[in-house]
């Protein structure tokens, strides 16, 4: 039996019409050999997606179906596919036919040049300008700026990974949007990108709207913190604490100046000292929180739960 070299992981949610052409396109792209597999992950679809995907799996041993017990979201669905993929190289893509499986060999080829993660970027995006392209352009700029990972299209699901990188990443919440940043932060992955084709959605409706912007911002803050302060969270909180303490000193000075220079009846004796106390309280609070975060990190290491970092030279 040929060992599986490439696993293509595709999360599916209400994509019953897309599944048959998707399976055909992946077969066409990866050829008749048996060194690849297609892992379809049904994310609790409410239509016939699981049934259609099950038929595809029954007719081709290279196609596998994982069914989640409920609609968990794209990130858990993707993580389920990663956990069960058998290939040395794993490729993720959307199930709505907007990504083109014909790009997979190019991504894998680039990975074999020595990268850990190759991210596709949609060169000629077939999306609406107001609700998709502009928010995406802004989000990508912010993500690049905050994470320091220079990927121009974080929203493109078509990516190829080495298995060793995935073993060090544990995706949850909605982190699929920040996989390169997570890979860089938690596995030190070497990342590059390639232009890929993009097609307009043929079936069904988009599962995302403008409401995701606030969620993206909250997740981004998390990623930034993990990337910058994963080892020493106390530093993050200490910086905040220092800022608050400086403001406290500022208001203390203002209180002293007001008391010395102005007549007491014009200036309340409470407002400036009160403001100073508030900022000092915040400074102490942040420092204590930082200690709690530091304790959590130390306990995590003591449990032996932290994986060894990815080492260079062991990937061929």
């Amino acid at each position, binding site marked *: 039996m040929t060992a599986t070299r490439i696993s293509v992981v595709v999360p599916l949610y209400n994509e019953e019409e897309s599944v048959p052409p998707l399976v055909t396109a992946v077969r066409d792209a990866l050829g008749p050999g048996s060194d690849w597999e297609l892992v379809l992950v049904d994310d*609790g679809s409410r239509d016939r997606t699981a049934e259609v995907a099950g038929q595809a799996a029954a007719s081709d041993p290279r196609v*596998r179906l*994982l*069914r*989640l*017990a*409920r609609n*968990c979201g794209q990130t*858990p*669905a993707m*993580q*389920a596919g990663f*956990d*069960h*993929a*058998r290939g040395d190289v794993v490729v993720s893509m959307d199930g709505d036919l907007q990504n083109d499986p014909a790009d997979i060999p190019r991504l894998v080829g680039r990975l074999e040049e020595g990268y850990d993660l190759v991210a596709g970027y949609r060169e000629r995006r077939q999306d609406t300008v107001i609700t998709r392209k502009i928010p995406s352009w802004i989000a990508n700029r912010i993500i690049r700026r905050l994470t320091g990972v220079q990927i121009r299209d974080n929203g493109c699901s078509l990516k190829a990974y080495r*298995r060793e990188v995935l*073993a060090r990443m*544990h*995706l*949850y*919440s*909605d982190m699929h949007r920040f996989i390169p940043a997570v890979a860089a932060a938690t596995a030190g992955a070497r990342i590059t990108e390639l232009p890929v084709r993009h097609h307009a959605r043929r079936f069904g409706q988009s599962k995302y709207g403008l409401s995701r912007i606030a969620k993206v911002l*909250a*997740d981004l*803050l*998390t990623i930034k*913190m*993990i990337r910058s302060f*994963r080892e020493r*969270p106390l530093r*993050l*909180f200490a910086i*905040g604490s220092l800022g*608050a303490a400086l403001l406290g000193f500022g208001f203390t000075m*203002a209180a002293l100046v*007001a008391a010395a220079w*102005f007549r007491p009846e*014009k*200036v*309340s004796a*409470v*407002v*400036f000292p*009160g*403001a100073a106390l*508030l*900022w000092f*309280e*915040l400074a102490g*609070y*942040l420092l204590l*929180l930082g200690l*709690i*975060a530091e304790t*959590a*990190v130390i306990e995590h290491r003591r449990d032996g*739960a932290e*994986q060894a970092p990815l080492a260079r030279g*062991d990937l061929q």
Partner: protein
Amino acid sequence: MSVVVLVDERPEPLDGIYEEFSAPFRAAGVPHEFLFLIEPARESLATTLEPLAAGGAPVRRLQLAQAVPEGAMVRLAAEQARYDTLLLMPAYRRVEAASLPLLTTHVAEGADLALACREPRRDPGLNRFQSRVFHGMVNRISPQRFADIGSGVMAIRRGLLAELPLHGEFFRFLPVLAAREGFTVHEVPVRQHTADQHARVYPAGTYLRRLVDLLGLFFLVRFTDRPLRFFGVLGSVLGVGGAVVLLLLLYQRLHGIGIANRPLLLLGLLLLVLGIQAVALGLVAEIIVHLGAPRRKSYRLREPGPPPPPPAS
């Protein structure tokens, strides 16, 4: 089947509970056991079980060394039970004994959890009003609607208990937690016991505890994997409120109105500081969630797939 009786709140004589509720299983010849979990304060009740056990009745008692929440009692029951289907019930009469086999039948036919729903309710309007308010709040949080989550009588597959967070008093919300994880939960209409038809008014502390439990459930269901979204929204609302107040004061200051003696300045700063505190707390919660991520799965497969491949070398 293991019938697990939680002997904590307002228990009735245990021998009577056994005689009445074991009758349908004895009549049908269903292999069963009755497992009484008795909290320390109710220890004296356990003596009534001794004659039953001596007479060969399938009765076991587990006397707890300390008072623990019902969730911990259920975890212990799952460890100790001899059968794979558990029927959980309180040590007082809520539903008619004849209805218990209905619940176990649902589990035997594929449900992961079958919850007794007292229907029609024959108790006073006050009880029904309280129940309606409580379920109105629960159903806003739950992915599946429930009509009588408070019945406390349910049949459940033992394996399911290992996959649910059963800490504290969350036993009450077991059906909600099971539905959230994608397990099949059936609500089965059963006849309400005549002994369950009196008006109930609880001490104020009980209502307060229920509200706190609901808040905990809300957080668990919506934000366990993403605490910063909860704290972030809270912090943003407070912080933006504070910023608006401070901008207003800045505007007034630029137009020559003094602000040094304005309590509004303190309010603006207080809101801003509270907002920062909420976001900072959310960040700590995110660190804890992130560190725990490798040890837990954010998904559950409907059918067990093939075992995951060995970790990369």
